[in-house]
């Protein structure tokens, strides 16, 4: 039935079909191919900011989340060169934040950690920076730990109150950029909205207060199977 779809393309030699306008990453998923990403949210305008979904399209490095499929497109995904690049980016993210997994409520459900597991990172090749970016506990339901933020912009693009952004970038550059939470709007978020904000965050930067560790070790999202297994085993 896939054959009725409009566009034909290939990922690592596998025949795939896509809807017109569908991004490479979404189309890959629909065809049972996992392309890793930390910033992508299906249905939300792509940011292309984490760069983890780097693939080769007709030989050129492109991000799969920002590139729409075109007919006859040839995509390389699971190749050593790209996996090496992805692992390097993941390691960069690990050292440029404070990712103390053992003390993080998101551990086991964290997508950054899960990708590190998938690529079997034992230690980042880069030195840890231990940045100090501060925490914001001003909101009733949200605890915002900027030190864990990987600046994927998921929250910036999705979490709103009355149509206004609750989260936004502040500053620029490698040493001053961070994500901030609008004090006024964040205090108006309901518990459900706080829960959604926490779920949209791939790491443990946005946490719902008074929740802690809900799921025992061994039963969390990525304890048993690597991230992406659900797509690949479909």
């Amino acid at each position, binding site marked *: 039935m896939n054959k009725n779809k409009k566009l034909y393309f290939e990922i690592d030699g596998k025949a795939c079909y896509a809807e017109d306008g569908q991004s490479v990453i979404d189309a890959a998923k629909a065809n049972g191919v996992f392309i890793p990403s930390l910033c992508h949210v299906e249905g939300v305008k792509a940011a292309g900011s984490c*760069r983890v979904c780097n693939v080769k399209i007709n030989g050129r490095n492109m991000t799969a989340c920002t590139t729409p499929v075109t007919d006859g497109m040839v995509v390389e995904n699971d190749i050593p060169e790209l996996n090496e690049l992805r692992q*390097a980016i993941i390691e960069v993210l690990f050292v440029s934040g404070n990712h103390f997994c053992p003390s993080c409520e998101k551990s086991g459900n964290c997508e950054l950690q899960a990708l590190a597991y998938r690529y079997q990172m034992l230690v980042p090749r*880069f030195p840890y920076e231990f940045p100090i970016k501060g925490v914001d506990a001003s909101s009733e339901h949200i605890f915002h730990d900027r030190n864990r933020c990987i600046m994927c912009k998921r929250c910036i693009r999705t979490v709103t109150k009355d149509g206004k952004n609750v989260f936004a970038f502040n500053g620029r550059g490698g040493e001053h950029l961070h994500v901030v939470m609008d004090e006024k709007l964040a205090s108006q978020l309901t518990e459900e909205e706080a829960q959604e904000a926490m779920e949209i965050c791939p790491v443990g930067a946005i946490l719902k207060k008074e929740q802690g560790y809900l799921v025992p070790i061994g039963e969390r999202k990525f304890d048993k199977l690597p991230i992406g297994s659900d797509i690949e085993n479909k």
Partner: protein
Amino acid sequence: MKDKIANLLKQYDNDRSRLIDILLDIQEIYHQVPDEAVGILADQLDLSKVDVEQTISFYHFLTQTPIGEYAIYLNDSPGAYMYGRAEVAKAFEEEVGISFNSVTQDGLIGLWDTADIGMNDQDPAAIINGIVFTELDPAKVKKIIGEIKDGKKVEDIAENVADVIYTKGILRTMVKNHIHLNNPIPYDDQEVGSVLKQALDLTPEQIVSEIKESNLRGRGGAGFPTGLKWEFCRKSGGDEVYLICNADEGEPGTFKERVILTELPKMLFEGMAIAGYALDARQGIIYLRYEYRYLLAYLEDVLQEMRDQNLLGKNIAGKTGFDFDIRIQLGAGSYVCGEESGLIESMEGKRGEPRNRPPFPVESGYLNKPTVVNNVETLCRVVPIIQNGADWFKSIGTKESAGTKFLSISGDCNAPGVYQVEWGMTIKEMLKMVGATDVQAVKVGGPSGTCIDPTQFGRSIAFEDLATGGSMIIIGNKRDLLKDFILPFTNFFIEESCGSCAPCRSLTVILRDKLTRIIDGNGTQSDIAELYDWARLGQTANRCGLGQTAANPIITSIENFRNLYEDLVKTDEDYLSAFNMEQAVAESCEVVGRVPNIKSH
């Protein structure tokens, strides 16, 4: 304040896309964007406060804390240090009594480090309340600060040495043009508008094909064929098309556009009108870097003059139905806004984060309409090409690089300034031309370009060899290349990264730290190898030109000056820790009141 800001907003039709203009106006009035103003803007524009703040905090010249009634922005780029920036900075600190990046207690004077301001041929230079002061030395600093303390206005402090005098008076600034021509291309003195009239006798398609035929390539650095870009834009169709002139030259070491804007604004505007006609665009916008704000009134006057001559406006030059006008949009201090899609984001009142492509600006650019972004120099070239034909243009330069190039040459040479040369000139010839001897390295294309050593001085300046937007920094043999150029250039990219792409934002910091480790003598052979491998990661991983080239200072210096690195590292060890016990225990010993006993530990 509420009324004042409401009025300002009205002036811009409450248009969110004009946020940069609104913020610059507020900054001008209050020497900051006060918190209250942020709140008012957020309410009026239906944004959250953090949303307004994410735009403010992106730009160097927009601040949420006071910058001082007299805000002194002193160029901090490596080039300035070659001409004595350190002594000038010290003089400022001593005269004002504060250190850089702070404001006096009475709020009168602020001292600020600033990335390259495009005055490399007359550094050390500073911008004080929008007016540029050049060739500073401690004596001049003393005089300036004295006069500020006497309450003199900045425009009265500036000694006028400007080259241009315009209708409303002199261009009050100390900027010189230092033009050195060598020119096969008619430079000025043509009758303004004559070529435009010639162009209007052709169809837009004919103009596009003439530009295509001429092999004109973008002069900003990337070198994309101009005619092709125009053709793509025409193919996108749509009733609203924009032409943007990129006057945001931020690459350290480049200043040729400043000179073109000063000397040849009419040629530029005429070129824009021709481009507007070729693209069916009704609106041209010049994105002028904030550092060149001192040119704003002057350029506005020239525009008015051309409107008065019916060379801009409605039914231009008698051609019924050809309406085209130009407005100037100020930037607010950001290198990455020189990237065309970052520039467009900025023009829409947002953070200047480069966009993902596709779609390209020619398909969906400013306000999501088809948009052509061309560099100042590129648009100027359009005029002589239409005047003399594509074949004539192609007869100059090399096979792949037609015409001439404006170079901004600075550093260790006798005559820094703007030079117009034919593509194909070798570096050796260039060095002779500017009187440079005893040269260690040339930074071709600024920090984002390549750093070459004397064995490569036979190479030529052309798209097929050393492609460049025109920044040429000559570094003499006595200079410390790694410490005084490669390291600060890397810091420049860290500061100017928009931060959106993870590798550009964070990897560059890691590289800088590794480089520092080597410079500090804590590196080993393997550190050089790692630094090189890590630096190469960003080239493919990042989205825009800045991110892809941010590691170029490191990459090209390792490739061409490996000996400098080798000299710094310990070759007989494979591991070296940068850990220093004395420093590490200093604070805790002081807190508990004991004398550090390093030896026993």
